[in-house]
C-alpha cells in the first residue's frame, strides 16, 4: 500500500473546530412548550483535520456519534455549534487561482450547493441510498443535472465513463437498482459521489452492510480512486481491521468525543488511550495459542442524554485513576467505583444488589429481599456482587466502604451516596481530559497522558487555574 506522507505544516483541506450536534429529544412542541426538552449530545466538541490526499478513519461503538459527525461535517444535519472550514478551489476566468477558506456552517444555501461539488458523501446502506424508482443512469446523472455539469450526449458519455471507473458495465445504465447486488449498488453510490468531481468524500460505513469478500473489493476500489483522482476520505467504520487497512490516520470516538487521534501506526501501538486499548484487544486473533489479554469493558455505553462528568469513559475505564490517598489494586478500585456509580443511580436497595438464589425450589416464589438479610450477610452479598474483597488493602478506604455499606443496610441510600462520593472520587470524574500530544500527530484525551496530571499533583495544578481549567490549558 503506497503510504501517503502527511505533511504537518500544510493547511488542512477540511478542518472542524469544536463541532457539536445536539438532538432535541423532546416529544413534540407540547413538550418543548413545557420545557421538557433534553438534548442528546450526539457529537460534542470534535476537532479534526483532514489533509489533502489522506484518509482519516473514524472508529467507535455504535451510537457514539460517528454518523452524526459525518453528516454535521457536510451540514447534512445542521450543527449546533462549531465550525467546519474548507479550502475551496477558486477559479478566475476558468483558471485555477488558489484556494479560499470557507466556513461550511455559515455559508448561504446557494454557496453550500456549490460546495456540494467538492464535498461528497457515500452512504452506509446501499439498499436504501439509491432511489428504487430511478434507473442507474438517472441516479448517476442527477448530480450532473443539478450542477449543470453535462447535458445530452456529453451527459450520457460521462455516465458511461463513471460506471466504468467504478467497475460496472456501461450497459447497466438503464437498469434499476434492485437488479444489482449490494456491492454493485455501493459502486453505483460511489459513482454518484464521483460525478461532481469532488475533493473530499465522507464515507459513512460504506462497507459494513456488505459481506466480507465484497468489502475488500470496495475498499480497493476506494483506494484506487484515491490514487487516481487525489481524493481525501473521512472513513467512518466500526471495524478496526477495515480502518487499519485504509486509513492514514485514525480517530477513535467515544460518546461524541474523540478519545484518540493519530496516524495508524501510532494508534495501533502504545501509548494507548484505555478505550483504544480495549478496542484493539477485541480484534480476533487466528492463533489458537494466543493468550493475549482481552479487555472486557463492563457495562454499557452511557446515555448521550446525560453523559458522565469529567472523562466520559470513566464509568467503564479499566485504568481509572485512584485518588492519591489510596493505594488499591486497579481492579479493586474499579469495583469500588462501580459500586459507587450504581449507588448513585439507585433508587432502592433492590437495584443495588440481589440475593443469590440459594433458597430451595419450594421457596422460589417468595425470594428474599436484600433488606431482610442480617447485617453480616448483607455486607458479603454487596461485596460479592461487586467483586470486592472482604477487606480493602487500604485501611482508610476500607473504613469508608464499610461505613457506606452500613448506611445502605439502614436503607440510607442518599447517605451512602454522599459518603462514597466523599471518599472515592477519581480525578477522571472531575476533570475533562484535554487531548494531550504524545507524538507528532498523536493526541490522546486521557488524564494518564495529560501532563497536567502527575500522580497526585493534578489537583494542585488544577487549583491554580480554577474551574476554568478546561479552557485555560486547551490546545497545549
Amino acid at each position: 500500500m503506497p503510504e501517503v506522507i502527511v505533511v504537518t505544516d500544510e493547511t488542512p483541506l477540511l478542518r472542524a473546530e469544536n463541532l457539536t450536534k445536539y438532538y432535541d429529544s423532546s416529544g413534540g412542541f407540547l413538550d418543548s412548550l413545557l420545557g421538557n426538552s433534553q438534548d442528546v449530545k450526539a457529537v460534542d466538541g470534535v476537532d479534526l483535520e483532514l489533509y489533502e490526499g489522506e484518509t482519516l478513519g473514524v472508529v467507535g461503538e455504535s451510537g457514539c456519534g460517528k454518523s452524526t459527525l459525518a453528516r454535521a461535517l457536510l451540514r447534512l444535519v445542521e450543527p449546533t455549534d462549531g465550525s467546519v472550514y474548507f479550502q475551496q478551489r477558486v477559479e478566475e476566468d476558468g483558471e485555477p487561482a488558489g484556494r479560499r477558506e470557507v466556513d461550511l456552517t455559515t455559508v448561504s444555501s446557494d454557496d453550500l450547493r456549490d460546495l456540494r461539488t467538492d464535498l461528497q458523501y457515500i452512504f452506509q446502506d446501499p439498499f436504501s441510498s439509491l432511489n428504487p424508482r430511478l434507473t442507474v443512469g438517472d441516479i448517476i446523472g442527477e448530480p450532473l443535472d443539478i450542477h449543470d455539469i453535462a447535458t445530452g450526449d456529453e451527459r450520457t458519455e460521462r455516465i458511461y465513463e463513471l460506471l466504468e471507473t467504478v467497475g460496472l458495465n456501461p450497459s447497466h445504465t438503464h437498469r434499476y437498482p434492485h437488479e444489482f447486488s449490494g456491492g454493485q449498488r455501493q459502486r453505483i453510490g460511489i459513482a454518484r459521489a464521483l460525478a461532481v468531481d469532488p475533493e473530499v468524500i465522507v464515507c459513512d460505513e460504506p462497507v459494513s452492510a456488505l459481506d466480507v469478500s465484497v468489502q475488500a473489493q470496495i475498499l480497493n476500489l476506494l483506494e484506487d480512486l484515491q490514487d487516481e483522482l487525489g481524493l481525501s476520505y473521512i472513513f467512518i467504520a466500526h471495524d478496526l481491521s477495515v480502518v487499519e487497512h485504509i486509513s492514514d490516520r485514525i480517530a477513535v470516538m467515544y460518546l461524541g468525543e474523540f478519545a484518540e487521534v493519530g496516524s495508524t501506526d501510532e494508534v495501533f501501538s502504545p501509548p494507548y488511550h484505555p478505550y483504544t486499548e480495549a478496542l484493539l484487544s477485541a480484534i480476533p486473533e487466528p492463533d489458537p495459542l494466543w493468550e493475549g489479554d482481552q479487555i472486557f469493558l463492563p457495562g454499557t455505553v452511557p446515555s448521550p442524554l446525560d453523559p458522565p462528568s469529567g472523562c466520559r469513559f470513566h464509568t467503564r475505564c479499566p485504568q481509572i485513576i485512584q485518588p492519591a490517598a489510596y493505594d488499591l489494586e486497579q481492579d479493586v478500585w474499579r469495583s469500588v467505583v462501580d459500586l459507587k456509580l450504581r449507588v448513585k443511580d439507585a433508587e432502592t436497595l433492590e437495584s443495588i444488589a440481589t440475593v443469590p438464589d440459594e433458597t430451595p425450589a419450594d421457596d422460589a416464589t417468595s425470594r428474599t429481599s436484600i433488606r431482610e438479610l442480617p447485617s453480616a450477610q448483607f455486607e458479603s452479598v454487596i461485596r460479592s456482587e461487586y467483586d470486592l474483597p472482604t477487606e480493602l488493602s487500604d485501611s482508610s478506604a476500607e473504613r469508608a466502604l464499610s461505613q457506606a455499606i452500613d448506611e445502605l443496610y439502614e436503607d440510607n441510600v442518599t447517605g451512602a451516596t454522599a459518603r462514597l462520593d466523599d471518599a472515592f472520587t477519581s480525578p477522571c470524574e472531575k476533570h475533562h481530559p484535554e487531548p494531550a500530544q504524545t507524538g507528532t500527530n498523536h493526541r490522546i484525551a486521557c488524564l494518564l497522558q495529560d501532563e497536567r496530571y502527575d500522580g497526585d499533583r493534578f489537583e494542585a495544578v488544577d487549583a491554580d487555574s480554577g474551574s476554568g481549567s478546561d479552557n485555560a490549558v486547551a490546545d497545549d
Partner: protein
Amino acid sequence: MTKTTDGRGRIQITGFDADEVKEREPLSDWQETSGGEAVGRWTRVWERFKRNRTALIGLTIVAVMSLLAIFARPVEVMGLTVQPISLAPYPPEEILWIRHDVSQNTPPSWSHPMGIDGEARDVFSRVLAGGRYSISIGFVVVAITGTIGLVYGSISGYFGGWIDEVMMRIVDMILAFPALILAMIIVSMFGGGYWQLVAAFTIFGWATYARLMRGEVLKIKENEYVMAAKALGARDRLVIFRHIVPNAVPPLIVYATLQIGTVVIGVAALGFLGLGMDPGTAEWGTMLENGRNAIIPGPGGDIRWWITVFPGAAIFLFVMSMNMIGDGVNDALDAQETGVAGGGDK
C-alpha cells in the same frame, strides 16, 4: 510442544490481504443475456394487474359503463356535435306519452327494456345517460382532491415542525366531521347542480389524502436516498417531486381508486335526499329519489320495482367494479414493493 504466546501476528493469513489478490473474481455473474430488457416500473405493475382476473372484470365493467354513458346521447360542445352516436332510444328527460303510444308505469318490455317510470320516461335511456353525471363526478372529484391532498401532504410531511403541526391541525378539523354532512352543508349553501356537487365533495374531501400522503412522506424521507439527493445539492422541490412523491404515491393511488366508488355513492346519497341535481335530472341517486313512492304498492297492488331497481343496480355495479379495481391496484403495487414473486398475484 508449541508454546503459548501473547503476541499477535504469529499466524499470517495472506489470502485475505486485499493487496495480494491479483486475480479477482468477476464482480458478478450477471450477463447481458441473463437480464432481459429492463422494464419500467409501471409496465411491471400493469403486467401484474393484468393477471388479476377480478380486477380485469371490474375494469371492463367500468369501461363499458363509461362508454355507454358517453355514447348514450350526442355530445355538443358550443353548438358543435362532437359525438353523434345516440345509444339511448329516447332523450332521458322526454315524457313519452306526449308523442308515443305508451302509458306511465309500464313494466319492462322489448321496446322499453327497463320499463317506463311514473312520469312516463324511458328508464333504460335514463340509466344510460345518468352515468354521465355519477361517473364523471366520481372521477373529477377524485382527480382534484387527490392532487390537492398529494401536494398538501407532501409539504406537510417533508418540512415537518411547525408547518406540519399547523397543516395537520387543519386536516384534523376537517376530519372531525362526517364527509357527507360537510357535503350537505355546501350543497344547501350553494344549491344543487353538477359543479356544486363537485365542490361539495372537493372542498373537504382532500383531507384524507393529505393525511395519507403525509404519513408516507414521513416514512420515505427517512430513506438515505433522500439525504443523498440533498448531499448532491438538490433543491427541496426536486427532492420532493423526484424522490419522495414517486415513492410515496402508491397507497394514494389505491385509496383514490376506492374513493371513486365512495364519491359516486355520496352523490347518489345526496340525490336521494333531494340535495343533488334538479329533481327531474337523470342521475342515478336522483332517479332513486323520484322512484321512492314507486316502492309502495300502487292502487292495483303491484310494486313498480323497475323504477328503482335499475338505477340502484347501476350504482351497485359501478361501485363494486371500482372496488375490484382498487384491490387489484393495491395488490399490483404492493408486490412491487417487496419484489417477492408470487406474493400478491397467483
